[in-house]
């Protein structure tokens, strides 16, 4: 496993380490019927999305870390994909999570801007990876 793949694998584990406990925390808030969470539907949605995206992107990082060298043979292209996947996998779930922190009624906080930024980064990684597989 080269350094790029190893970094992606580590990132994948860290994403799971952050966003799996988030899921457990949200379940606890449901179990305890904590009004400040349950009554703010926007915050509930944002944090649920953060939990889902964080874990899903963590698994993507683990998969690409494990199989990147086989799927994308060109080193430079693989580094590009890893860089933008890292940016997207961190900023997108973080944007959802922080969008639900210090938010006003009916609107997420400005951290939500991390979400489209992360989305663009993931798109760039995806396109570059797809071309790499084709090559």
């Amino acid at each position: 496993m080269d350094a790029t793949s190893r970094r992606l694998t580590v990132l994948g584990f860290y994403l799971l380490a952050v966003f799996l406990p988030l899921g457990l925390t949200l379940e606890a808030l449901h179990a305890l019927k904590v009004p400040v969470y349950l009554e703010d539907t926007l915050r509930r949605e944002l944090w649920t999305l953060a939990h889902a995206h964080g874990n899903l992107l963590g698994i993507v990082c683990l998969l690409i870390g494990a199989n990147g060298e086989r799927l994308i043979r060109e080193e430079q292209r693989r580094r590009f994909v890893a860089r933008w996947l890292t940016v997207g996998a961190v900023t997108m779930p973080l944007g959802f999570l922080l969008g639900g922190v210090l938010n006003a009624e009916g609107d997420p906080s400005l951290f939500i801007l991390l979400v489209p930024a992360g989305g663009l980064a993931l798109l760039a990684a995806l396109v570059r990876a797809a071309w790499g597989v084709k090559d």
Partner: protein
Amino acid sequence: MSRHPLLLLALLSSPALVVWEMSHGFDPAAMRAAEPMAHRKGGYVGSDVCLSCHPSQHASWERTFHRTMNQIASPETVLGHFDGERVEFFGDWARPHRDGERFVIEIPTGDGGRRVAEVALCVGSRRYQQYFEEVDLPAGSRLERLPLVWHIEADRWMHMNGVFLEPDNEDWDVHRSNWNRNCVFCHTTGPMPGMREGVQTAFETGVAELGISCEACHGPGGEHARDYRNPLIRYAAHMDIGDGGGGADLVHPPRLDAQRESAVCGQCHGQRLPANLADLITWLDTGPSFRPGERLENHVTPVTRETPSVRASSPDLFSQRFWGDGTPRLTAHEYQGLKASPCFEGGQFSCGKCHTMHGGDPHGMIEEEMRGDQACLQCHGEIGADIPAHTFHKKESAGSRCLECHMPRIVYGVLEIHRSHQVEIPDAARDAEAGRPHACTLCHLDRSLDWAAQELDRLWGDGRGDYPSPSERLDGAPLSMPDGVASLLSGDAVQRAVYAAASGNPNGAAWNQGFLRVHLLVALGDAYPAIRWLAKRSLLALEGRMASGIGESLAAWEHDADPIERVAQLRKLIGMLVQKAPASLRPAADRAAAFLIGEDLSPMMQEISALLDLQSERVISIGE
């Protein structure tokens, strides 16, 4: 090894962030608790707290008019057209308009001047919406009613003086009443009027919720919500383990006995006084003491016809809300009617037998089938097998509908006539002597109470005399006269209002007889604006079924216009009817005089005036 602290940090980061946000971030419940007037005393927590566990019940409540009974004025809650158009009334005017985000009404001050009043609170959202301004005082404040109301169905402004049942009154401020010591008791949840000691006009009012919300019927929910946050208690209750987890339960009205279940509704739909009148002062500070699940009569005495007035200036304050036999004739006395019903004696009859708070039509809080025979057939099923055998009317006719005879529309409220909630058997003698409308002649408007008594005895009494003939009418009109005519002309104000509304029933037994239009036109000259309003509405309904040529002019006629112009237009309307009415509306020569009209539909004014003179001199003044 160097990664372990970092991994630990990662594992703890999101839970720590969530916990921090929970304690420092936006809290919807806290925001609502901080809204104007909101309190969280006495265990009340507000409906938002119920949402997380009871979303479907919350949603079914949210669509009701109970929720929107009181609302802070805002573009989302104000229904009236604040468009800057003048609204004229008795030679003066008001002008509802917007001032930026504010809703304001320019109104006369009574001394020739004008002022601008800002709407702070809206009351009502179904039939009409009233507006209140906040008056700041050194010891507190109070909300005072403004003179204009927005009639939702008619889509127009009206003056308050025209929506209560009382004679024309040019005083713009006669209904400038105090919300904090009146409306707050029934139009909010968990009211605490907060009357300042020694200053009976100043208040620091608090409510658990503006509007009738969960806790009004289920009781204060603080303890229940706190206990049921514990999942062990919740799941023990779900699975019915032990004592259900031991959490504090709320009152579930359908599980109460009929008396206590009805009391939940009766706390508002049954006008009442504190059981101990001395408690009135306490009520004006900390609010009523009744809570759902309790016996209402342990806390209050529902008012009856015999209840002594508490206002020296109005000795008939309570008695005028009831017909002569004690049957309620004003809305918000349904609890009294229910309890006086023979059905109630069985111990099974309660509000919830017909009404539902979380289903059906929010207009009346009722399932559609309960608007019909099913309401009665759920207990009297044997009648349903052969309805005509019981009613002696065709199966499809209005005369075969249980509610038309046993819960007739004889109750005034909010510019409308409603069903009585005192289930009863029609009795012409009782009704004539009590001066109240009679179920048979509310449909058979061309028939007399004498006729009704004979028919009742023939059909339901087998001629045994179970249904005696009346000895006299309370209003003094001849017993042999068609009840529709006699009551419209000679009855007291509530009687006239009821018959003015009933005369417009396009499916009534007499809808196609011209005398109804003549006497409804006469009723357009009534001294009570609410009666004129109902009479006009009835005439328009009859015109809709069969045009007589007056429809267009009638629609343009305003019941609250300048009296001189109004009467002049009315004379023209009567002339138009005489001139244009089709032959089918004109009476047979031998029957005309019985209806006090000529063959050409011209009113016999001398005879009519004699009957108008019989109208009770007692001034009726009843609100909602």
